[in-house]
């Protein structure tokens, strides 16, 4: 029975560790690194234990303070949220393993401890957001998450990262306030803050207040849409993700954006419910913006020459896929969207980490400078190649499986034109990703000698960075070959979204 407390243990462990870090007096040494990684391992073990418990016993709700539902804050621990927590911790483990060596040359050494404090608070807020079943509690976690995610960009203290984080801060604050406004409107209609109680109440009252609920959901979708970077609201993302330190880029693009997407999924399906959402026309709007995101994200990415900016714009397109699945409002659509949440987390982390280690070793960010680089950095470019193939949707990668599920879902929903959008987007993806890979592996340039000479960081990427990249890349392949590991759990969780 101790298993039901594991989400709390994970959260308190992360919070406690985040608050201990600033008290460290010793320099950033091996002992601290080992403790930090073992905190993540312990929380991973608890997440997996929780996953096994939830698969055996089904989803359950956890109220704080043993109060009844509606008085105390409630966590809803279902299969997908636990799986998502496990994925967050796994990817965080790899990114932090990578960051140990990478951070030294990206941020000021005196700020390393502050950086890890922020990262653990970010994980705390993200996992809290995934579990929570209370909209005001969600708002609190959203605020913690937005402030910490701004801070892990600004900590680099360069001109462009400060500008980008200021932009992100302003956009993010507008987003938070908008979300709060939407929550207030929902509270006005239903008189509850607990999602389950709102869902029960909204079924009774939505015919009286359809405009009010549409307005509330409009506020909420706009607010979370800013934070999740759906197309017309995306313009903070490329600056923020490309100017941040590499581990931060991987965190933001791979995980943080997904937390907001999951919050949207909860709001649409758990709070308002699929029937009412379709009835007030919510899902149609989502589909329009999803298609715009998919196409425009790729088109923008084509014109970028900075490798990290290209990856960042590709995130906009990939978020579009997730919204496409959510907008279909069918079982298959939701499960495809949730699958893509996880598969994109692995692919984008692999891409950002490998792009980061190219920058680490050579200092080159321009796409044209990367020709022949696979000769000097084989491991890095292999991981990059895997991520790229996943983004395009080549079989045996997780990207193929998510596109497959999305295609099936759109056919099932009777909207085959969306399949064409997915195909066009795959071609666009190939158009802007493949040239990098082809020139890196197949072209030879004299620059590969100069790379070795110019480099100040030694001639190879540190082993810990290589290992973490390779394992994230392996994750992409494993999910691509055995999608059922993830899909079975998602299929268990989908009924909790659509009653």
């Amino acid at each position, binding site marked *: 029975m101790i298993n039901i*407390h594991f989400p*709390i243990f994970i959260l*308190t462990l992360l*919070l*406690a560790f985040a*608050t*201990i870090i*600033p008290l460290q007096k010793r320099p950033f040494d091996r002992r601290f690194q080992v403790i930090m990684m073992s905190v993540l391992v312990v929380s991973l073990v608890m997440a997996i234990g929780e996953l096994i418990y939830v698969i055996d016993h089904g989803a359950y709700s956890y109220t704080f*303070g*043993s109060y009844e539902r509606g008085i105390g804050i409630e966590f809803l621990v279902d299969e997908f949220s636990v799986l998502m927590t496990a994925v967050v911790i796994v990817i965080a483990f790899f990114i932090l393993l990578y960051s140990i060596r990478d951070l030294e040359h990206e941020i000021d050494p005196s700020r390393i401890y502050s950086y890890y404090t922020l990262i653990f608070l970010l994980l705390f807020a993200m996992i809290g957001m995934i579990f929570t079943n209370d909209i005001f509690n969600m708002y609190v976690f959203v605020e913690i998450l937005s402030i910490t995610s701004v801070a892990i960009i600004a900590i680099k203290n360069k001109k462009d990262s400060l500008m980008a984080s200021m932009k992100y801060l302003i956009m993010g604050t507008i987003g938070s306030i908008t979300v709060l406004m939407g929550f207030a409107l929902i509270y006005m209609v239903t008189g509850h803050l607990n999602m389950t109680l709102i869902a029960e109440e909204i079924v009774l009252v939505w015919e009286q207040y359809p405009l009010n609920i549409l307005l509330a959901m409009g506020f909420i979708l706009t607010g979370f849409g800013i934070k999740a970077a759906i197309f017309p609201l995306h313009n903070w993302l490329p600056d923020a993700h490309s100017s941040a330190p590499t581990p931060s880029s991987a965190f933001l693009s791979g995980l943080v954006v997904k937390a907001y997407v999951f919050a949207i999924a909860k709001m649409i399906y758990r709070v308002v419910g699929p029937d009412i959402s379709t009835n007030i026309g919510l899902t149609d709007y989502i589909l329009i913006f999803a298609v715009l995101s998919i196409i425009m994200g790729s088109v923008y990415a084509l014109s970028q020459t900075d490798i990290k900016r290209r990856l960042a714009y590709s995130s906009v397109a990939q978020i579009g896929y997730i919204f496409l699945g959510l907008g279909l409002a069918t079982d298959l659509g939701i499960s495809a969207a949730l699958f893509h949440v996880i598969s994109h987390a692995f692919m984008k982390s692999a891409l950002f980490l490998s792009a980061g280690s190219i920058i680490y070793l050579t200092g080159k960010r321009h796409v044209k400078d990367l020709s022949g680089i696979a000769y000097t950095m084989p491991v890095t470019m292999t991981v990059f190649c895997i991520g790229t193939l996943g983004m395009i949707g080549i079989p045996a990668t997780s990207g193929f499986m998510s596109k497959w599920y999305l295609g099936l879902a759109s056919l099932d929903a009777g909207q085959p034109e969306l399949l064409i959008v997915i195909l066009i987007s795959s071609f666009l993806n190939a158009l802007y990703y493949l040239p990098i890979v082809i020139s890196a592996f197949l072209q030879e340039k004299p620059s590969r000698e100069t790379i070795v000479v110019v480099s100040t960081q030694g001639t190879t990427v540190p082993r810990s960075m290589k290992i973490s990249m390779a394992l994230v890349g392996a994750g992409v392949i494993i999910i691509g070959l055995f999608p059922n590991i993830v899909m079975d759990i998602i299929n268990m969780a989908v009924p909790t979204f659509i009653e």
Partner: protein
Amino acid sequence: MNDLIVKMTTKLVLPFIQLYGIYVIIHGHLSPGGAFPGGAIFATSIVLFTIVFGLRIGQKRLPHHVSSKLETSGIFVFIVFGLTGILMGYQFLTNQEAGFPMGEWGRVFSAGFIPIITFALGIKVMSAVVTLFHTMMEEE
């Protein structure tokens, strides 16, 4: 700032601000207010002190290493009291069922662990505001 009147007034006002801050914190579960307003009120006294007497003397009153320890311990008190509920076989942050004495209704010593948590969080808020202010002053 080298003004005798300002310094004397600050010295006179300071204890009252602090007393009021502590009052708001301690009565957090009975009256309007609580950890956040109370902590902020208490912090304004130290902020005022720093403005009037300068950063060097202000930091001597509440050095950075002390305030960061206070912040951490505030969170820890919260976590420990929260986990006590689990230890007693209930859920996180369980109050009455976990055996905390409820006391008499309307008195300061009532409502189980809530006054203790409010006090810890009040100290945490106070040290956070002071740390923020001092850090901003240092970077000027």
